[in-house]
């Protein structure tokens, strides 16, 4: 209803994008899918490809176009080519938030790996019978909306929350409630909570594929359990480590809900900044530029993963 003429004009080039020649992104998608490319395989991927082109590629291209426009009065888009948004995004003022976001995502990934690896290991080697149930338990957070989960965290960790209620009033262990919310540690804790399954599942996938005979062979050759793990199990699980880390890191960098609800003024992340550009600041071009920088970061991560994975394949890893 409040669409400017510029908005309407933007739809033209976007529609034509669905008919374009296969580009690097298509090749990326195909190589992600891997496998023989025959007409049948093309047919199989067609519905998903169409979906992705329309609902992923087209919006990303729209954002890309928008990132080179200027902000007009009251947040309207001015259809004038400019790189000013990128220049602004790369000024030192935005360096802290970029580093903070990468730092939080990195810390979350490291923690997920630290917590998730033993779990995936146990799942693969010790709990054959209860494996299904444990995986269901792991996926439990996905059963509820993440907003509901975040509010539950607030209820549990708030100053008057469950934990403080128990520690202070019920058991009298503390004289004053602990401040959990609005702290970086809590934001990272929340991120770990949400992204742990993204780490565990690929880890489990690659650990489960490690044949027991390799472990026996290592022990046979004189490796104690630690050496067996370090020299055999760990290197063979590296594809899972890479996949899990990337699957955790990428959405973490863009996450804004966790920081918004569990964080405070000092946990403002890239995702919050982008969300803010589209709402409070009404600066869609700048928000788009930030989003594109994020996409570029994530695509870089994906390519890195592919390279690592390819090296793994060449090395004959499972």
């Amino acid at each position: 209803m409040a669409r400017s003429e510029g908005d309407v004009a933007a739809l033209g080039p976007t529609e034509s994008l669905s008919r374009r020649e296969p580009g690097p992104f298509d090749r990326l998608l195909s190589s992600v899918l891997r496998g023989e490319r025959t007409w049948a395989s093309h047919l199989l991927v067609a519905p998903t490809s169409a979906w992705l082109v329309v609902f992923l590629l087209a919006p990303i291209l729209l954002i890309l176009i928008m990132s080179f426009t200027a902000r007009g009065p009251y947040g309207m888009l001015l259809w004038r080519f400019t790189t000013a948004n990128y220049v602004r995004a790369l000024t030192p003022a935005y360096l802290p938030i970029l580093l903070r976001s990468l730092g939080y995502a990195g810390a979350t990934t490291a923690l997920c790996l630290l917590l998730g690896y033993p779990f995936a290991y146990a799942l693969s080697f010790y709990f054959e019978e209860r494996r299904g149930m444990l995986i269901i338990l792991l996926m439990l957070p996905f059963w509820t909306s993440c907003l509901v989960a975040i509010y539950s965290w607030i209820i549990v960790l708030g100053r008057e929350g469950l934990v403080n209620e128990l520690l202070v009033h019920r058991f009298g262990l503390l004289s004053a409630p602990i401040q959990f919310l609005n702290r970086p540690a809590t934001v990272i804790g929340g991120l770990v909570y949400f992204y742990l399954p993204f780490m565990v599942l690929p880890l489990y996938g690659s650990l489960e594929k490690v044949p027991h005979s390799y472990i026996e062979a290592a022990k046979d050759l004189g490796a104690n359990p630690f050496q067996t793990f370090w020299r055999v199990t760990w290197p063979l699980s590296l594809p899972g480590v890479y996949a899990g880390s990337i699957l955790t890191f990428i959405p973490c960098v863009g996450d804004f809900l966790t920081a918004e609800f569990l964080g405070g003024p000092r946990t403002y992340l890239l995702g919050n900044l982008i969300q803010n550009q589209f709402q409070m600041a009404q600066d869609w071009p700048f928000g788009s530029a930030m989003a594109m920088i994020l996409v570029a970061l994530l695509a870089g991560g994906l390519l890195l993963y592919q390279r690592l994975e390819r090296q793994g394949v060449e090395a004959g890893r499972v």
Partner: protein
Amino acid sequence: MSAVTRRDFIRLALLAGAFGPAWAACSRGPRKRQVNFFNWSNYIAEETLPGFEKETGITVNYDMYSDEEEMFSKLKAGVQGYDLIVATDYMIPRLKTLSAIDPIPHDLLKNLGNIDPKFQNPDFDPGLQFTVPYLWGSTGIGYNKSKMPKPPSSWKDLWDERYAGKISALDNTRDDIGCALVMLGLPADAKEPAQLEAARDALLKQKKLVKHYSSSTYIDELVSGEIWLAQAWSGDVLQASRDNKQLDYVIPKEGSFIWVDSLCLIRGADHREESLQLIDYILRPEVGAQIANAKRFASPNGAATKLLDASLRQDPRVYPPPDIAKRLRFYPPLDPDTEELWNRTWQEVKVM
């Protein structure tokens, strides 16, 4: 402008409900007599809409927002189906420029004359061509008396290191930049980059003390004592202070901002006639008083004033006496470039 317990879970409802009116508008067709009304959360008396529906037989689909920019984004992004919205004064020029709202046909409103003459010719909409004033209030400091060694009186109290971690500030360009400028003694409509840099530096200094920026959860935290003082909207604090006598509200001595929230007709609304009927209903003295009494904001409806609770009418925090009133001003109208400068300044504070 705001409301007492604008708890964030309302956002959940909003996320789900955002497209409700659009759906309703499509599926039910134009024959059904209804109004799709988009207002701040918790910003209307409980009995107002049922009373209207009962009297007119018109159904009101009521939808709420807790962040005005979010509401604006929705309109800008082309979410359709709303007929009537409530928007704050500084938003009006934007909405007009974007042709998002229609002029108000004064001849169809019997009760428009009830508006206090002071509000009949505001800067943001001379002659009330596009808006009908709904409620007004101020930005000030809300605090918990039981926690504060002495009541705050100045914006500088929000920069007091003794209250580190016990301070909350609104999450809003206008209020944060504006109040920082006022605290620094700079013009409240500063345009010079140097002035805004000074505001930014002040806000960055404050940020070290601020527990969080929030336009919605600070009331709960004031009540619980988790924060001691907060940059706040008047009605939010006053509404809560009815239940909690420890809460109080003060307009800082440096001065502050008042704002008017107004009813606006969405351009090309499907239910224009019904919307105008609802506006006229709200303009009735007894309805205007009903809303103000419930929400503890001041009413721009002059005819309603005598129907207000005495406690509200005589509250200097709601209707400031002349000596305080002269320290209050509307949010300044900003030209687009200045507005962008303000926005950037606020973003630079947030990203650090």
